[in-house]
């Protein structure tokens, strides 16, 4: 079955979701989800190894040859991300069971798992598809699942957040479709590879640029790039913790990948970056994101919201690398996609532990956490430090590549922007650390629930990962480099 891994890796989570809804058994759903997760990981790793050894894999859905049928194109870059997402989401799944029992009503748990797997399948579909419209379909699958996940929390404001995201997400998807439509009118094809070949000799420059703009804006809405980020904080704040961890660590990353794919593989480096305005816009928006979102984060009192704004800022880092657009910058972006995924998973899982044990949602409730729940406190501390980019954590690695990239381009402004935004991050993280370790708990403490082993274990594992990959970058950094070299900059180098 290994040669069918491209199809399986998308279909396994979805089959899992369908089975969960078909069986609807409260004890089996977690098991089914885990089995789907494990098998997805298995095939994603096989995919990655194949992509490494063979190069780009093209898989024709339905057996119809590519421009006619739908093609799945797996290269070293997206297979890497698929594996990452599969693994992270599996770990979160392991963690999910106890957390959900606390945070969700009993009868919604099956649905949650189902939605989770659907979202996962959708994201993997976006990553692996080589077809513009198929990407839209899977984008919508994952989005719809996301809306449901967000609306599931016990906080009634989750409904508003879900609605808000639904509106914005749909606008984004529609803009994306408009962009694809323009391309479709010009080229008559939807296969991304085919399009990129055909765009080479297109004289219709204006529709091309317009489609670029639409696709970029559409995806940017999904990414929550700074002026378009309004939905994200609420969505993250009011979703169930497991959902937040999953979304924060995967969803935006996939959208960013899609954007990168369009910029580098479809439109091509030359077209995109011959356009100075585009670079300027991307860079300045990224910088504004890094500053603005961090500034807002400093004044947040809701813990999840704070880290949500921090996510917006971190997304700024990733797009910054896209704007820097050289080898190191892109490596920085790619590495940060991976790293931020790990960091945010760790943080939100830790927050999930807090919610589980003592219903902590606000920052001031963190006071004296270091004494009450030392393990979780350490996890939050370490992963927050990683957000700042303290050396020895993954955050530093990304920052390093970004700094190098911008130095190569002579973008000193960007270098300083990076530095200053780190300071802003330092401010909000410092606040949290101080509260955790140096404050005494205020008022009567809720008697904490006993933490189940797997929750703690996964959280700790993620935290260790943030440190481990900050020290040993063979896995993340080198793979990212290879991906960038072989896939994105294939023609340029």
């Amino acid at each position: 079955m290994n040669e069918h891994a491209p199809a399986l890796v998308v279909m396994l989570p979805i089959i899992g979701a369908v089975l969960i809804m078909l069986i609807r058994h409260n004890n089996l759903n977690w098991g089914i989800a885990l089995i789907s997760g494990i098998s997805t990981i298995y095939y994603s790793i096989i995919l990655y190894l194949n992509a490494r050894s063979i190069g780009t894999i093209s898989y024709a859905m339905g057996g119809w040859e590519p421009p006619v049928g739908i093609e799945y194109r797996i290269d070293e870059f997206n297979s890497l991300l698929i594996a990452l997402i599969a693994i992270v989401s599996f770990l979160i799944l392991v963690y999910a069971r106890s957390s959900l029992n606390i945070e969700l009503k009993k009868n919604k748990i099956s649905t949650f798992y189902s939605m989770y797997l659907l979202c996962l399948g959708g994201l993997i579909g976006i990553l692996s598809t080589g077809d513009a419209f198929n990407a839209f379909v899977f984008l919508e699958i994952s989005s719809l699942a996301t809306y449901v996940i967000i609306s599931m929390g016990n906080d009634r404001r989750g409904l508003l957040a879900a609605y808000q995201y639904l509106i914005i997400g749909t606008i984004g998807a529609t803009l994306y479709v408009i962009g694809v439509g323009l391309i479709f009118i010009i080229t008559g094809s939807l296969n991304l590879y085919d399009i990129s070949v055909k765009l080479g000799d297109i004289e219709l420059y204006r529709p091309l640029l317009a489609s670029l703009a639409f696709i970029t804006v559409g995806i940017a809405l999904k990414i929550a790039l700074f002026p378009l980020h309004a939905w994200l904080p609420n969505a993250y704040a009011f979703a169930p913790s497991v959902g937040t961890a999953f979304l924060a660590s995967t969803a935006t990353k996939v959208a960013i990948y899609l954007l990168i794919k369009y910029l580098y593989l479809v439109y091509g480096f030359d077209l995109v970056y011959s356009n100075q305005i585009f670079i300027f816009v991307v860079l300045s928006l990224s910088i504004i994101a890094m500053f603005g979102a961090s500034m807002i984060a400093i004044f947040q009192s809701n813990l999840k919201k704070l880290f949500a704004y921090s996510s917006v800022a971190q997304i700024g880092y990733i797009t910054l690398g896209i704007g820097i657009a050289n080898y190191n910058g892109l490596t920085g972006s790619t590495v940060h996609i991976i790293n931020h995924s790990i960091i945010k998973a760790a943080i939100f899982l830790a927050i999930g532990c807090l919610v589980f044990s003592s219903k902590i949602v606000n920052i001031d409730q963190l006071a004296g956490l270091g004494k009450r729940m030392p393990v979780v406190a350490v996890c939050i501390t370490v992963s927050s430090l990683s957000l700042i980019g303290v050396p020895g954590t993954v955050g530093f690695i990304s920052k390093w590549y970004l700094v190098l990239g911008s130095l190569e381009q002579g973008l000193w402004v960007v270098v300083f922007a990076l530095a200053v935004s780190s300071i802003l991050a330092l401010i909000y993280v410092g606040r949290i650390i101080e509260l955790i370790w140096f404050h005494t708990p205020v008022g009567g403490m809720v008697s904490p629930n006993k933490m189940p082993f797997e929750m703690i274990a996964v959280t700790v594992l993620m935290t260790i990962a943030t440190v481990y990959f900050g020290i040993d970058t063979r896995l993340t950094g080198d793979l990212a480099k290879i991906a960038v070299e072989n896939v994105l900059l294939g023609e340029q180098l």
Partner: protein
Amino acid sequence: MRLDLLLRISSKIFLPFIILFAFYVQFHGDFGPGGGFQAGVIFAAGIILYTIIFGIKKAQKDFPETIFNYMVPLGVLIFTVTGLISLSKGFNFLDYDALAHYPKHGQHIGIIAIELGVFVTVIGSMVSIFYAFVARGKK
């Protein structure tokens, strides 16, 4: 009361034709406009009409909700299993050539199968959604 009666009679007359039309659209998708999705929507519209006219209670008694709830994943399953069968025969996912000896024949079977899957899911979804909307009730 009188309006109700009029609507009820009309619905009784039209309902079978709506359902029949849905099946027609389903099975003639190969030759004319239509296919699983359209058929499913029309079928669901028929059920919805029934609900509107005869009330949610009677509708849920006559067309039990559970059935539709189970139809939702079932259709997806039909679709997926069709794809997996081709996988198991060594063909690519959703390659219907695998389903029969002659590719063209296989394609035909495959198309019918997945149209059926679409049909089932769409009916299930639309009716489930409508039931959920209507049965929610005001607080």
